């Protein structure tokens, strides 16, 4: 359990004043746009940047404050950086063992073989970091941090240096670390998809302050969050897998918003999954459309309308649970939408987080 209050003014004049506590959840996401101060806050917690004032407590031990300032190498906080930062002069094995060797035997809780297996890096062990691909480097960096048996593991936008496809490939590895090792994690990111899949709790950060904290589903659906994650607004709902095989390679899910069909999920009936529907993937219609390829059409009622970026507007819908649609302001006018209007929400695609919620 981490309790931190950090005040720091950076040379450019940027002021950070953030309170962050991790709850019982395994993964706390630190979410916010670039420049919000997420990495600075994370670096202060790890001891890489010295706060001007504040207090950092981990598992009841004061790491900073009251005249105490524990050196970073004594904090036992693991850190995965935006770049892999592997030591180029050491083999993959020596990189992995770097932290392990420096951890007293009594505090070692993570086994080398277990981590190598989880991250699927066995065939890389004899190689040098420079000969590895981006994804391979990231996995070795994860393993190196985990093998120092940290009390808290900070992932500071660990996928930032990878392209889209590689990012998606890395998420299962982080999920595996989260599920198989009992290490509390702080996951810094501005990517909603990553947070959706990984986080139990979310702290939202903007302009050097933590503006909101709470359970992931709650925060991901709150209005503030929608604005914080501007380009990628959406809604998150939890659903139960009612029919794993609903024919034609589809699975049927029941949610508060109604029945949804998604590509076949490799899960058992009754599994709970977290779904994210991006606002721009929802179209609205006044009448129930027919002769249309969209599978998921949910009746809903307009709750609120607000202006979005450029020519768009955000429509908050009540479909049993809250949905958000982003359509043009012209469409709002032409459809005559006002709060209370009954509409049909046409959902073009659904992102599914298989890992959490079970």
């Amino acid at each position, binding site marked *: 359990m981490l309790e931190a209050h950090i005040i720091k003014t950076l040379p450019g004049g940027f002021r950070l004043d953030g309170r962050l506590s991790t709850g019982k959840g395994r993964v706390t996401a630190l979410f916010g746009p670039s420049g919000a101060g997420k990495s600075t806050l994370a670096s202060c917690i790890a001891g890489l940047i010295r706060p001007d004032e504040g207090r950092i407590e981990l598992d009841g031990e004061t790491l900073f404050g009251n005249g105490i300032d524990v050196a970073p*190498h*004594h904090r036992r906080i693991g*850190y995965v*950086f935006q770049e892999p*930062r592997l030591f*180029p*002069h050491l083999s993959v094995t020596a990189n992995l063992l770097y*932290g392990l060797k*420096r951890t007293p035997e009594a505090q070692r809780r993570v086994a080398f073989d277990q981590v190598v297996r989880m991250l699927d890096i066995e065939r890389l062990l004899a190689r040098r970091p*420079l000969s590895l691909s981006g994804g391979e480097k990231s996995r070795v960096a994860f393993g190196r941090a985990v093998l120092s048996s940290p009390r808290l593991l900070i992932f500071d936008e660990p996928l930032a240096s990878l392209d889209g496809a590689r990012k998606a490939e890395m998420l299962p590895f982080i999920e595996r670390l989260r599920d198989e090792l009992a290490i509390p994690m702080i996951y810094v990111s501005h990517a909603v998809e990553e947070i959706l899949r990984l986080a139990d709790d979310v702290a939202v950060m903007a302009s050097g302050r933590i503006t909101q904290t709470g359970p992931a589903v709650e925060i991901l659906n709150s209005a503030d969050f929608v604005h914080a994650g501007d380009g990628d607004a959406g809604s998150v709902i939890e659903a139960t897998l009612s029919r794993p095989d609903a024919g034609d390679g589809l699975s049927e899910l029941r949610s508060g918003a109604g029945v949804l069909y998604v590509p076949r999920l490799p899960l058992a009936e009754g599994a709970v999954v977290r779904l994210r529907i991006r606002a721009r993937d929802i179209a609205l219609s006044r009448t129930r459309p027919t002769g249309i390829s969209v599978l998921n059409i949910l009746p809903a009622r307009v709750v609120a309308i607000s202006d979005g970026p450029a020519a768009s507007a955000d429509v908050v819908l009540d479909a049993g649970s809250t949905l958000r649609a982003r359509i043009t302001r012209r469409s709002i006018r032409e459809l005559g939408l006002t709060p209370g209007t009954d509409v049909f929400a046409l959902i073009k695609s659904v992102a599914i987080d298989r890992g959490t919620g079970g």
Partner: protein
Amino acid sequence: MEIFALSALEREALMLSLRVALWCVAISLPFGILTAWVLARCDFPGKAFLDGLVHLPLVLPPVVVGYALLVLFGQQGFVGRWLATSFGLEIAFTWKGAVIASAVMAFPLMVRAIRLSIEAVDTGLEAAARTLGAGPFGIVFSVTLPLAWPGILTGMVLAFARSLGEFGATITFVSNIPGETRTLPLALYGLTQVPGSEGAATRLVIISTLLAFVALIASEIMARRIRKRLAA
């Protein structure tokens, strides 16, 4: 093959030069690395002064350095007297003095090369090492110095070569004593003062040139090997 055999004077000067140059590198290396690391990684008041002090031998006339060493390390100088009474060490007018003279003259070159290579080491790697439990010393020996190794090697070779060529400070500090302080450049200087020694002088010129060249090529080969290992 008479021509390839070294004369007694040549052999004596060559071996003395090598001995002085190797000792010069050996004793200045720890100080050179420490100074380079401080200049590359630390920020403190007086850093510009330290930087200037280190570079001073580069811009001072060598005879000034030699005379200053004589004042400090001579039998009446306070360092010289202390070394003589505490350790029985005679510095002035011995080959040890030649080592000190060339170490001082070569120091800026060594520090500069090492400092540049330490500055080129990504501080992000050092930060990563800290989060993995390495203390300040551990980081220097496990990350910074191994990655700066090509630059350290360059600094060592530069100091070695500079020592082989050292003349002004040496002759001022320890004079030109056959078998004790008469290194290759001093022997060459001696020969140029004697009419009819052009042939012998030319041989010394060739020996000096070959020696410097071999040192440079050896360092280039080593540096290439290290770089390949870091990149493999």
